[in-house]
């Protein structure tokens, strides 16, 4: 089966510019996650969707980050304006409906590496 698709793989921007990342999860996966992984750290959850609804966005810096999953399939994560500390890999993951067994087995995409200069 096709995996989790993410684009772009790499992006370099200057601070205060904006950037958007796209994710297409595994077909049939109702739950979608965006994680931020700073160099040398483990991934940190930014936002979790169940279909087109937000389950948890408590760690999303809402003054500059936004995410949507309008039709409950693919998702976009936006940063505006970017700061130097936003340099990281943004990982998208998907899993089965959170009410089903095995819902915490996440399948990750390859990630989008952001460098903010």
């Amino acid at each position, binding site marked *: 089966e096709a995996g989790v698709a993410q684009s772009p793989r790499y992006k370099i921007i200057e601070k205060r510019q904006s950037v958007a990342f796209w994710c297409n999860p595994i077909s049939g996966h109702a739950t979608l996650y965006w994680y931020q992984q700073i160099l040398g750290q483990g991934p940190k959850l930014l936002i*979790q969707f169940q279909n087109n609804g937000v389950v948890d966005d408590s760690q999303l810096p809402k003054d500059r980050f936004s995410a949507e999953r309008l039709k409950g399939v693919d998702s976009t994560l936006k940063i505006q304006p970017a700061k130097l500390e936003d340099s990281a890999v943004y990982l998208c993951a998907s899993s089965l409906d*959170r009410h089903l067994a095995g819902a*915490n*087995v996440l399948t*990750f995409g390859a990630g989008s590496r952001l460098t903010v200069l």
Partner: protein
Amino acid sequence: SQELEQSPQSLIVQEGKNLTINCTSSKTLYGLYWYKQKYGEGLIFLMMLQKGGEEKSHEKITAKLDEKKQQSSLHITASQPSHAGIYLCGADMGGGADGLTFGKGTHLIIQP
């Protein structure tokens, strides 16, 4: 403070040797998940442990969860170059399917 502590942070092992990576939580875990990450790539799922005392093996990798469900170990037997990468433990801290909390990872290097 880090909710999940992994040790060691990095490990250099000669090819063919055994090694162990640990993951410790101050709280009882509802589930513990091991992932492997190669540089510049996403995370690959290895194993899931949910019951106290549970042990699972796949090829040369064995993962265990202690009886208290607060500590897990990942053991690799007769290491190979293909085992090199970053090993991350992720935990279900809340009992619901609300995403995983990850440790910082253990960077494994295999020397020929």
